[in-house]
């Protein structure tokens, strides 16, 4: 028995427009380019919808209707879903129809297609939770297998996923860690007892995703029959062939004139002709097979480039600088409690922004140049840093106002109580029970783009005056220690 587990990743970032230094402090919109360039997000989504999402979903729906055995997985970034909702609602509906068949599984992901796990685990967790809520809301399902941005993976990520109840996690099947072993089995991470790893068979996946339309390729043109033969040759050497690729491979990376749609249309039937070959979703795969060995990945592994690491996102100084500047803002962004500021900050975490700043000019560099809507990595960096500077300005302004108001309140109270030692401690309202639905960590998220004004807070919390009066009696405990 050999099963095939296809997984298509759907993603669109919010590209930052040519945000100039002059715009800092005056323009709050970073993503609303309306030019004829590839920075215009609406234009891109509409273009890719026509070239890829609409025709591909139509074929996938037909295939599901024709072949009851056919199954596959999808993963969505929240930024893609939001843009479908805004710019191409019919695309979102067609995805919902696919999932409604019950034979299309949705994977867990970060909402903002970020690398947050490697920079801030608390923020990563919030994004995963936000993603889960969004998937539940749109598709009515709860993901049980995890895939991280750019298929980035490390032992501690698997551990985190196990601790958070996921059954499986996806990773690149890379020789450096596999050795002589086949990617066509399930593996388990070191230090975990339950979670299993599904490894991408990169040779067979990349035959479709990267090489399909390449006329220099020795196997061009690739027919579904030939390809099915390659998959069938894995009988006896594995249990599951995991084909992971960008959804946009169909129609966008590989254009219609390469014959990719005919290939897709023919593939399930050609595969199913073999009596011992069928399809499984990720969860079915994880439940059907045992882990055959340990897959030990101490350093970050991704599906990108020939390096299979994060260097396409953090390999040069400007990328590291932009990442550091972004995550350095976390504390204040969350403190601000402003939902729109938090959302903008998260949109700026999308990995694509850092990818556009890549300066690897090797063979990989060509790929980066192809996928970048900016004229150069430096232009990408400038637009990003300027937008981030504006955001920082706004966040700091909100936080400073809060601090000033609190200080003023404390002043009044300490005068009343006759105490001279002024303790600028956050008022208790900062730490309510963290059951707030969104952005639980912040606790002060308001739902209409407005923070609760301190005056209102006093009305809402009549005990606060009493607390302020007596708080100087209590020892001052830093917030971070309170939670542990």
């Amino acid at each position, binding site marked *: 028995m050999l099963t095939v587990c296809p997984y298509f990743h759907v993603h669109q970032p919010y590209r930052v427009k*040519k945000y*100039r*230094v*002059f715009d800092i402090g005056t323009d709050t919109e970073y993503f609303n380019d309306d030019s004829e360039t590839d920075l215009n997000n609406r234009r891109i989504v509409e273009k890719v919808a026509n070239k890829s999402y609409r025709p591909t979903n139509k074929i996938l729906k037909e295939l599901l209707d024709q072949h009851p055995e056919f199954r596959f997985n999808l993963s969505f970034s929240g930024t893609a879903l939001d843009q479908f909702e805004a710019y191409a609602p019919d695309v979102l509906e067609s995805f919902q129809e696919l999932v409604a068949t019950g034979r299309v599984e949705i994977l867990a992901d970060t909402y903002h297609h970020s690398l947050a796990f490697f920079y801030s685990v608390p923020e990563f967790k919030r994004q995963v939770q936000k993603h889960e809520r969004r998937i539940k809301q749109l598709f009515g399902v709860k993901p049980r297998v995890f895939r991280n941005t750019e298929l980035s993976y490390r032992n501690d990520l698997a551990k985190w996923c196990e601790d958070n109840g996921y059954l499986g996690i996806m990773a690149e099947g890379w020789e450096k860690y596999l050795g002589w072993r086949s990617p066509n089995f399930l593996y388990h991470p070191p230090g975990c007892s339950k979670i299993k790893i599904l490894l991408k068979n990169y040779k067979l996946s990349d035959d479709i995703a990267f090489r399909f339309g390449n006329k220099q390729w020795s196997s061009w043109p690739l027919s579904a029959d030939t390809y099915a033969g390659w998959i069938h040759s894995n009988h006896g050497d594995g249990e599951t062939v995991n084909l992971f690729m960008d959804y946009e491979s169909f129609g966008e990376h590989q254009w219609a004139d390469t014959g990719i749609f005919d290939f897709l249309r023919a593939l399930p039937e050609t595969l199913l002709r073999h009596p011992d070959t069928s399809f499984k979703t990720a969860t079915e795969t994880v439940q059907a097979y045992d882990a055959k060995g340990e897959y030990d990945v101490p350093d970050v592994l991704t599906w990108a480039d020939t390096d299979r690491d994060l260097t396409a996102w953090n390999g*040069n*100084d*400007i990328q590291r*600088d932009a990442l550091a500047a972004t995550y350095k803002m976390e504390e204040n962004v969350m403190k601000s409690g402003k939902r729109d500021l938090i959302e903008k900050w998260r949109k700026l975490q999308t990995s694509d922004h850092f990818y556009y700043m890549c*300066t690897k*000019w090797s063979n990989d560099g060509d790929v980066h140049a192809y996928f970048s809507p900016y*004229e*150069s990595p*430096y*232009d990408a*960096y*400038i637009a990003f*840093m*300027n937008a981030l*500077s504006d955001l920082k300005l706004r966040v700091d302004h909100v936080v400073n106002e809060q601090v000033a108001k609190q200080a003023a309140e404390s002043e009044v109270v300490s005068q009343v109580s006759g105490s001279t030692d002024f303790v600028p401690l956050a008022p208790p309202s900062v730490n309510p029970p963290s059951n707030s639905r969104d952005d639980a960590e912040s606790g002060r998220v308001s739902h209409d783009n407005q923070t609760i004004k301190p005056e209102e807070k006093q009305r809402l919390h009549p005990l606060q005056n009493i607390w302020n009066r007596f708080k100087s009696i209590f020892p001052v405990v830093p917030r971070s220690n309170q939670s542990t």
Partner: protein
Amino acid sequence: MKVLTFSWEYPPAKNGGLGVACFGLTRELLHDGVEVTLVLPKTQAIKGDVRVLFADTERLVRMSEYEQSFPGPYHHATTMVDSVIGYDATGKPILRSRTILEEAHRFAHQAAIIARMEQFDVIHAHDWTSYLAGIAAKIASGKPLVLHVHATSFDQAAGDNVDPSMHQIELEGFAMADRVVAVSNYTRNMLINKHGVQPDKIEVVHNGCDAEEVVALEPTLQALRDQGKKIVLYHGRISIQKGVDYFVHAARRVVDVDPNVVFVISGWGDMIKQVIHQVGEMGLSEHVRFAGATWEQERDRLYQSVDLFVMPSVSEPFGLVPLEALQHGTPSIITKQSGVAEVLTHALKVDFWDVDQMANQILSALRYPVMGEQIVKEGRLQLLGLSWQKAAAKMAALYRNLLQYATS
């Protein structure tokens, strides 16, 4: 293989990119075993080892040591040059002023004489002032002619209002040439579109750059540095081609946002008065410093002491200055209307007319110093790949290609 090369300038005389390019190319050709004989219009000191003929010796035409100010004298056909045409009884030189055009014709006359005396296989003439010499040598010897385009009349006019005599020489030259070498695709396209040269007659040979060890010099502009000012440098000829007026407009936009920036303009040229007026009119006197023409050490000290270099050229066939700045550890903003933009990826690029974006890039580069550091770090690696050796190898291949059907 023997090459007879005509050029107007050659180091160590103070001059622009043409002399630097001739020197780099000649040095590497000699290294590769190509025998180069260099012909220059007037007697001068010569840097390096190359057989040189001066077109003013032995033929009783001797030019005076012309005091070159920063702009090379040949950018307009009617620029006057003083020549010594003989000596009076007391040994005092007799001077005669000629236009560049007259000088170019005189050079051509001498070239014909030289071509009959010398043994060579190919003629290589650099830039329009030598085209007539190249043509004359070809007529005299029947050897194939390569014209090397370092700039065109359209570059120097920064538009279509070209110097008619210069343009005429270009057209005649390209018609007579067996092969035309352009220093960039930018120039190649211009030759095709503006001069109507057959595309397959043109070969692109990008200029190189010497990866010399740079010596850290004593910093300059210390007073400004001590005040915590950020410094942005322009260095080059001050003429309409170089876009200094756009640079000043960008400066205004920058200073509006960040008054802590100072702009240094190093160089001289026919537009200097206009630029000085412009700076005054735009209320930038406090923010712009004119350094005059700077050379060698003084120029290198500027490169090393500033935060950012800008080459705002309206039309730049190649543009060596950003590569020099890079060697001295300073990142550059260059215009897309330049040849160097084709080979240098580690620079900020802007359209010369997009003053707003130029200002944005200046401000961003000063705001986020990490970017400049990376541009320098990675740009220097890229410089290693832009060698004169590579350019010379391409030239030698072109010579061989021309000679394959020649019978001696």
